[in-house]
């Protein structure tokens, strides 16, 4: 099966089969990163630009390592080094980058739909590395990969996503992706962090953390999106931590083999306690490792590789 799209903008438009193709492809790539010589020539001669208009550590490094391990050349530009500060429009920046003949542009931007502008204007493949509160598809795909790796399947699982759902692109992309499978999703957070109409997406809403995590196979903790106004909808971070910090005692009612996930960056003592973050159920660092494999798979598929 060839990858049918030029771009990867979100998980909402992906089918179950397409998601599985990415996950299966990623599985075959994961082993490369554990080799002594962590490089294959698959994308030799290809150029990948990461254009990050928002701060990022994990995602940018993950993409760059993924590209380099496939032998692609990578160039990174950021909001501060780009022309954005000089008043150039995003579309013009994109067109200028395209003139240098890249094959893929990964963009992260604070505004929803920014990757779609580039996708519509450029022939290069565009990967959404996170656009405002909209989507972060590669994060959701690595989350699904990690869940499937630990649980063997996605179908039939019960997942709780806890935190600032309203402002979270990770939540959206995960919900869209999980609902392509038989996953029972419960979203939990203070009511002001639950967007209206959320149930229309086929998820449950639970305001109490203890109830939300009960009987769950997977608990995914999210941080407060301070940069998108998350703070203004709660009385204080301290109060948030009282009601929405995942502690060991919460895990008593979850499934025995529950896994704890977090897309990072995590705020210890706020949404997650040290004991949980570093505990035996945590797969947070596995997510990061898998992110490289999943992004290798996505780059490979977008650039015409057949699985």
């Amino acid at each position, binding site marked *: 099966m060839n990858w049918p799209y030029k771009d990867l903008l979100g998980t909402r438009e992906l089918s179950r089969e397409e998601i599985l193709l990415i996950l299966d492809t990623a599985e075959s790539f994961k082993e490369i990163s554990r080799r002594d010589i962590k490089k294959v020539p698959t994308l030799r001669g290809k150029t990948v630009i990461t254009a990050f208009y928002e701060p990022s550590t994990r995602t940018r490094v993950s993409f760059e390592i993924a590209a380099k391990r496939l032998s692609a050349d990578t160039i990174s530009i950021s909001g501060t080094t780009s022309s954005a500060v000089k008043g150039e*429009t995003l579309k013009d920046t994109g067109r200028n980058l395209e003139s240098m003949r890249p094959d893929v542009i990964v963009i992260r931007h604070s*505004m*929803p739909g920014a990757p*779609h502008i580039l996708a519509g204007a450029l022939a290069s493949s565009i990967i959404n590395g996170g656009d405002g509160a909209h989507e972060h598809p590669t994060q959701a795909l690595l989350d699904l990969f990690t869940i499937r790796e630990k649980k063997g399947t996605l179908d039939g699982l019960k997942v709780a996503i806890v935190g600032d759902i309203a402002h979270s*692109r990770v939540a959206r992309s995960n919900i869209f992706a999980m609902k392509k499978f038989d996953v029972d999703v419960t979203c939990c957070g203070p009511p002001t962090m639950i967007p209206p109409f*959320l149930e229309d997406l086929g998820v449950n809403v639970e305001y109490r953390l203890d109830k939300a995590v009960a009987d769950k196979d997977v608990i995914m903790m999210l941080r407060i999106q301070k940069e998108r106004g998350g703070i203004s909808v709660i009385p204080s971070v301290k109060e948030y931590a009282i009601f929405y910090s995942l502690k060991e005692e919460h895990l008593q009612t979850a499934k025995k083999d529950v896994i704890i996930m977090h897309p990072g960056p995590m705020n210890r003592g706020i949404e997650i306690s040290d004991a949980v973050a570093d505990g035996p159920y945590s797969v947070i660092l596995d997510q990061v490792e898998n992110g490289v494999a999943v992004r290798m798979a996505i780059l490979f598929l977008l650039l015409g590789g057949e699985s």
Partner: protein
Amino acid sequence: MRILIKNGRLIDPATDRDEKVDILVNDSQVEKIEREIPQAGAGVQVVDARGLVVAPGLIDIHAHLREPGYEYKETIRTGTQAAVRGGFTTVVCMANTDPVNDNRSVSEFIVRKAQADAFCRVFPCGAITKGLKGEELAQIGEMYEAGIVALSDDGKTVKNAGLLLKAMEYSKRFALPIVSHCEDENLSQGVVHEGHASLLSGLDAAPALAEETIAFRDIMLAKYISAPIHITHISSGGTVRIIRDEKTRYSRLTADTCPHYFTLSDDATLTYDTNTKVNPPLRSREDVTAVREGLRDGSIDIIATDHAPHDLPSKDVEFNLASYGIVGLETGFSLSLALVHDGLLTLKELLRKFTQNPARLLSLPYGNLRDGSTADLIIFDPDADWVVDKTQFASKGKNTPFHGWKLKGKNRLTMVNGKIVYRDPSF
């Protein structure tokens, strides 16, 4: 110069007419309307309107002509050229120019500029408050003398209810209606409607409450002092219900909506097309249905375009950064004819919302056709199929979400003050 319009179907809501007649225009006036007027000799231009509808020229009570200050977006000349193409013979232009039309000299400038440049009648709408800042009353009386026909801080709500009450009260002296843009800024921190679509797009969203609460407030204020109140560009079903309900108790309440609010839902924003970014925002499908119902049952009296032209750089950016607005003068009437084709309104009922009702709101002598009335009229084909092509717009603004749409019904000829100012090349 005399012009004889033959064989047309005259539909005039003001005179409750729908019949095949001939219309003789003499200079700026309708000389007579009769079943059959013989082709009266030399010097009379004959226009054959067989198979077409003749109606009073349309009145748009809500447009942005951008002059003075934003001539790169639109001018009185280009805006009114767009207007006459779309069938409008009278346009009311909003006050958010630069400088703001909050004083006599800007009002006079617009009136004078229109006399020199405009293809149709232009009446300025004055600001309610100085600089649209919501702090002090604008020069209401002086602007009235210069020719304004209404007051509005369009684009903003007058936050201070006490000040708005004073404005309503003061403007009674001049019989100027307040045209209220309803938006509680504390509730409207967003660029799209809060609903299912915003959940999917992740765009910052504002609930319809932002419009509804202010609409209700403004109606209460007007009622208290028996002032006329007009709620403009209604987009929410909740507002339609408030208006329907309050109209049973208060007769000086009127309302308008715009074609985009009964044509597009917020689903259109899912593509991040900035031409769907408009204020108030496109709302849910249920709201669209409710607005259409409000038009059908008469809760909404008037259709206005809220023609809001922008230059490309204002729109060719991220959705969050794009300016609000949709151009409407060249598509508004055709989009509205869908209400007739869909069986919601008769042609006469639709035309009433473009002619008689706006004329009554603004106390204008136009919007009717009878012996002796001013010869502002249009001839249109309600069934002609055409495709919207923004590159062919007379307006400088190409910001339309309807580019490429197939529409049914098109204006063929526009006459202002007895002069043919637009004639479709195919006619």
